[in-house]
């Protein structure tokens, strides 16, 4: 494998990481919004979201990506590979984030909410000043864990034709007739990226445990 090959692998890795980060950035607030709707028990919307989240959490990235990429054009929405990839990854991570946020909301101590009610805070103010600052902290380890899982699942976008690290490795292998080196290199590079997220997760968990002890 020549230096040019390494470069395309690196570029491919960048593409997949960028897509993952985009999905994470949108999925986090989207998951929170969905969780809040479920927490408030909004009629019709709550059970609909529950069903949708259950479906998405069972959906393999490849299958969902194929659905979005090939099926949307049939209902008139033309979509390209990269947006389809982002939509796919975002939907999946938002569904998992929704469950994480919801877990934190359900566990939230009721007496703190009652204290906020008793000083005359309305629902929006309670959310902003009392609930969100605290669940951001409590949900963080699980959320970072989900980021790690998303990065690991992101090679699914290769099936849509996005030139991510998997496709880059495929191309190099096709050109050199030696698939093992590029795939091994791809595996190592991508595992290192995942490892960075794992380190971040361990850091978050360590700081959380230290805060609890103090």
């Amino acid at each position: 494998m020549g230096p040019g090959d390494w470069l395309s692998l690196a570029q491919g890795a960048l593409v997949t990481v960028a897509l993952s980060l985009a999905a994470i950035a949108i999925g986090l607030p989207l998951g929170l919004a969905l969780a809040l709707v479920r927490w408030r028990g909004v009629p019709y919307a709550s059970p609909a979201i529950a069903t949708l989240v259950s479906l998405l959490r069972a959906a393999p990235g490849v299958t969902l990506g194929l659905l979005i990429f090939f099926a949307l054009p049939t209902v008139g929405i033309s979509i390209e590979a990269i947006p389809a990839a982002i939509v796919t990854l975002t939907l999946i991570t938002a569904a998992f984030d929704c469950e994480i946020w919801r877990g934190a909301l359900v566990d939230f101590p009721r007496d703190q909410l009652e204290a906020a009610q008793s000083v005359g805070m309305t629902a929006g103010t309670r959310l902003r000043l009392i609930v969100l600052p605290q669940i951001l902290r409590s949900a963080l380890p699980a959320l970072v864990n989900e980021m790690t899982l998303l990065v690991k699942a992101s090679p699914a976008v290769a099936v849509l034709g996005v030139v991510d690290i998997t496709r880059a490795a495929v191309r190099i292998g096709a050109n050199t007739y030696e698939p093992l080196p590029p795939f091994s290199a791809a595996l190592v590079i991508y595992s290192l990226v995942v490892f960075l997220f794992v380190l971040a997760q361990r850091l978050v968990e360590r700081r959380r445990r230290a805060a609890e002890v103090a």
Partner: protein
Amino acid sequence: MNAPPPVLEVRALTKSFGDHVVLDGIDLVVARGETVCILGPSGSGKSTLLRCLNWLETPDSGTVVLSRERLGVLPGGNHRMSDAALARMRTRIGFVFQHFALWPHLSAIENVMIAPLHVQRRPRAEVRAEAEALLAKVGLADRADYFPAKLSGGQKQRVGIARALAMKPELLLFDEPTSALDPELVGEVLVVMRELARDGMTMVVVTHEMGFAREAANRVVLIDHGRVVETGTPEAFFDNPQTERARQFLMRYAGASTRANGAAAAG
């Protein structure tokens, strides 16, 4: 000359949880500056009654009127009050919780300041000065920047009282404020409450502390099985109970308390 309206008027309050009737027609009137202690055995409905007074629990029927304004229901009598209107009325009622219910991500002084700042939208400098004064009043001036995790139970409850006072309420409600405290921390909270009563705060206190009821209350109300059994001045109630149930209650509960007080005084 017209007398000022009572701060609180409760009429025919009922509340059931499923089949269990907790409040069975409660009437209560609290005048300005009065301190009313609500006593009763466990399960008598005392806490539920208190929580109905600021609509943390919604009563099934009956009325709660705060300074001639009806709580929880619009003037017509048919429609539930909007969340915003209810929140506005709640700013006039202070509530002190049995388990303190402080917000753990805020320091003591931030706990006291947050509602005047964001609900009443008062200027920060004014709110800060008042918060410091209130914390000083409850004896916690040097703990202003401490977080609840670093405070003892008695200190947390005193912050809770300061937090309730910061809204300048017309009425203060106390839900068994010392029941969750270790015995040696009870005193510091009762001292603060006695001072508030002396200063003319209108207070309704649900408590087991008979000593406090004797010394600080203008009136004592005994509740059992969701009804008012007897009401009167502390002297009348403790020394000369009129009803059989009151006598039974005093024998079971007040006896232990006076014995403990006597032991503390002797030791």
